[in-house]
């Protein structure tokens, strides 16, 4: 469904994406991994239209999305948001999100899942960081879309909510949806990811199943596999 | 009607005769009712002194009617005197002539002769009342006359240029005349005085005249009070005159290029009391005038409240209100011996700790910005700019360019009522 063709992005002199060719056609949960600065957030932001690529193109359902915005009504996105308009309440934000994009919503499910019902009438400025992250998840996930993109969804969540989120994502992954997740929590990836895309220095280093990566690197767990990749690259000087 | 306390009207008999209608000479006077078909020249000529001619409704087309004996000319409603070829209509050379209730029109502009609807030459004790004069070159023209009154006339012209228009009331070499309750508009000057002494101008409304509402030249000991001058080229000009009293007049909306409410040029010993100056380009423009008292006047939203140029000394500026003028005082030259005190300045930012209604720090009304304006007039577009505030403020803290001697040591905290 999503295809990146020779995608390049430069911020000033800094080349962040160096010609990415990536076809994400298989359904299920895909983890986009990579060390800091490898370009994974930029890649997703390019797809969401928040970053404008220097070169190349991005296709969604075989149509270019560059300069368009309507395709986003089929994409749910959870970003790393800390501050919402501070004088609005979660209820008002939900109403706004519904105003901004049509379609069926399931906010009640999340209010129960994250036990938010007592917080829905309070101003955002009075809510704790964890609660705000829950509201953020709720706003991102409430629309029932085929494509879901999550940027560090676990940050700031308490263990119970994290468990609930995982089980929700697992269920969603089985519904023939495409879910893209960036995260630094490897156990989380091991637990839920069907596929892995590993970015290194703005290029695709690996794309495939988790087990293939482990066997390729000859490691038992993802964390050490990745540490190994990064270590190797450093020693061969390719990281420069 | 007449003010008995007025010092300019001494002959008591005259008052009795004319205001109470009794007197020996009147006893045999005839009253004749005229119509428009009759020949006015002939009738006036054959009339006896002290006769009354009453013009009934109709258009009387004549010019140069000479009135050389005491007569009363009165108009009934709709009696219109129209100039035959545009020359003068009435020429009065006798004393004790009354002209009342008539309408005059059609005196045309001439560049050779100062034609007027009514001219009085060397007459005394005249009365010109309740007449309407429209579209005449000059309205009422007085020369070498005295002890006459001009009451409640409405004189309007359609002046467009100074050269091609005359004055509504023009007086030359006169004394002891009273001009009261008239409405004067659309002429060159509303009232023009040249060599006119001991006269009173009261309760007139002079507006939309292209030069001055009222103009004094070489005239002394006159009073004008309770008049309104608005929307004239300039309000009032007093030039080369002495002992003029200006009381309770209103000068408003006299604005334009070099416009002022009141111009004082080379005059001495005048007093300006209880007047209102509203929204004039310059409230009072003073050039070389000495010993003038300015008190209890209100200057409201003028461009400049008072602008001094030329040597001005021994003036007294007290108990005036300076309210929201763009600039209050502008001093072009050195002032000396002037007394400025107890005025209310709406700009004053001082305080009054002892609550005696007098500010505890002096007020310096001349600003650096007005000094700059004298150098670069275009800088006016920067008025009220924050930068100009800073400049003015720093100058106020330590004056360098503005005169140190011009200040009010006792500024009032509240408006003078």
């Amino acid at each position, binding site marked *: 469904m999503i295809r990146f063709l020779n995608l390049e992005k430069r*911020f000033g002199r800094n080349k962040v994406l160096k010609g990415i060719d990536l076809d994400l056609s298989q359904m299920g949960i895909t983890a986009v991994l990579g060390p800091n600065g490898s370009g994974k957030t930029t890649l997703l932001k390019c797809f969401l*239209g928040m970053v404008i690529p220097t070169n190349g193109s991005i296709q969604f359902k075989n149509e270019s999305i560059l300069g368009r915005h309507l395709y986003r009504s089929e994409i749910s996105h959870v970003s790393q948001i800390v501050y919402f308009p501070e004088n609005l309440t979660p209820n008002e934000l939900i109403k*706004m999100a519904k105003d*901004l*994009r049509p379609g069926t919503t399931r906010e009640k499910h999340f209010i129960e899942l994250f036990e938010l019902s007592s917080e829905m009438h309070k101003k955002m400025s009075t809510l704790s960081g964890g609660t705000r992250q829950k509201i953020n998840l709720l706003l991102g996930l409430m629309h029932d879309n085929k494509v879901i993109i999550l940027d560090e969804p676990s940050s700031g969540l308490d263990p119970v909510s994290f468990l609930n989120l995982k089980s929700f994502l697992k269920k969603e992954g089985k519904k023939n949806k495409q879910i893209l997740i960036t995260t630094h929590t490897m156990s989380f990836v091991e637990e839920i990811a069907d596929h892995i895309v590993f970015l290194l220095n703005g290029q695709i280093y690996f794309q495939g199943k988790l087990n293939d990566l482990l066997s390729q690197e000859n490691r038992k767990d993802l964390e050490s596999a990745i540490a190994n990749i990064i270590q190797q690259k450093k020693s061969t000087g390719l990281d420069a | 009607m007449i003010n008995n306390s007025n010092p300019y009207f001494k002959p008591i008999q005259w008052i009795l005769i004319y205001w109470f209608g009794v007197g020996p000479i009147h006893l045999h006077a005839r009253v004749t009712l005229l119509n428009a078909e009759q020949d006015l020249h002939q009738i006036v000529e054959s009339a006896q002194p002290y006769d009354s001619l009453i013009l009934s409704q109709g258009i009387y087309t004549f010019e140069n009617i000479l009135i050389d004996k005491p007569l009363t000319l009165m108009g009934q409603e709709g009696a219109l005197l129209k100039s035959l070829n545009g020359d003068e209509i009435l020429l009065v050379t006798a004393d004790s002539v009354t002209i009342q209730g008539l309408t005059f029109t059609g005196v045309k502009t001439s560049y050779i002769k100062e034609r007027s609807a009514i001219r009085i030459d060397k007459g005394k004790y005249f009365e010109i009342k309740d007449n309407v004069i429209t579209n005449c070159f000059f309205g009422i023209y007085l020369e070498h006359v005295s002890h006459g009154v001009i009451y409640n006339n409405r004189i309007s012209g359609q002046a467009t240029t100074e050269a091609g228009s005359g004055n509504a009331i023009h007086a030359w070499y006169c004394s002891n005349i009273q001009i009261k309750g008239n409405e004067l508009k659309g002429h060159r000057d509303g009232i023009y005085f040249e060599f006119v002494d001991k006269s009173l101008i009261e309760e007139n409304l002079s507006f939309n005249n292209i030069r001055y509402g009222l103009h004094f030249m070489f005239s002394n000991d006159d009073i004008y009070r309770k008049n309104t001058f608005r929307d004239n080229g300039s309000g009032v000009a007093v030039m080369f005159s002495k002992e003029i009293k200006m009381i309770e007049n209103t000068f408003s909306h006299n604005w334009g290029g070099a416009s002022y409410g009141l111009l004082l040029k080379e005059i001495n010993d005048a007093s300006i009391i209880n007047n209102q100056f509203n929204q004039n380009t310059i409230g009072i423009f003073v050039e070389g005038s000495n010993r003038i008292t300015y008190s209890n006047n209100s200057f409201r939203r003028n*461009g400049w409240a008072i602008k001094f140029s030329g040597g001005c000394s021994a003036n007294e500026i007290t108990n005036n209100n300076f309210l929201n003028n*763009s600039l209050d005082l502008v001093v072009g030259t050195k002032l000396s011996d002037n007394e400025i005190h107890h005025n209310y300045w709406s700009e004053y930012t001082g305080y009054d700790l002892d609550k005696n209604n007098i500010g505890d720090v002096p007020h310096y009304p001349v600003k650096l910005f007005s000094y700059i304006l004298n150098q670069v007039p275009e800088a*006016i*577009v920067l008025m009220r700019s*924050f930068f100009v505030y800073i400049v003015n403020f720093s100058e106020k803290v330590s004056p360098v360019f503005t005169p140190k001697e011009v200040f009010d040591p006792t500024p009032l905290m509240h408006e003078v009522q």
Partner: protein
Amino acid sequence: MLKIFKYTVYDLIRNRWLIFYTGFFLLLTIALIFLSNDVSKVLISLSNITLMLTPLVGILYGVMYYYNSEDYIRFLLSQPISRTSIFSGIFGGMATSLSLSLIVGLGTPLLIRGVLFVPEFITFIIVLGMAVLLSIIFSSLAFIIALYNSNRIKGFGVAIFTWLFFAVIYDGLFLLLLLIFKDYPLENITLGLTMFNPIDLARILTLMNLDISAIMGYTGAVFKNFFGNPLGMMIILILLICWIVLPFYWMLRKVNRKDF
């Protein structure tokens, strides 16, 4: 766009800075009314204050609001809405709430004082209108500054300098120029120079109402034709609107090329 506008206004009318700002103008206007019975004096004082303060508050508030809204803007960017709509909505909402704050703060006390029925009503409208226009102009400049500077400290610095430039430095240089070239005919240059500073334009429009007598008194034909003519007022208004439209257009251009 309208939806974003609606929620932005809805958020900002409950913003404590705006409430404080409204309260400040309410108190100021009430105090001035109590100090002076003369409505025109109140209006002159208010115009002096607003001509200086509204650009400053507009630019600082705009920068602050943009930086505080970066997360919110990212949230909106992932919605199926164009960038132009998002920023039109957010900027429009912010400018509207800022203007509302001025209208309430300056307007209510004067309306109660009966400004509708005095001859100074036109002046009141001009003073209020200029305060609103300057707020909009300077908050749009603020958005541009914030869009170009991701470093907040730098953004605030540039904003303050921009205000200082238009409020003080520009007029200082202007006056200096006039004094240096005072022997030359300066009228056209003077009129031209005012066009490049929105504060000067607003101030002159106010002057044309408050101090027209002074302006007319001093200078020659060019000024007289310009200031003594309703056309002059129209030109200034049009220029002020250009000062809103052009920065807004610039802002949208930048928005459509920026990476968030």
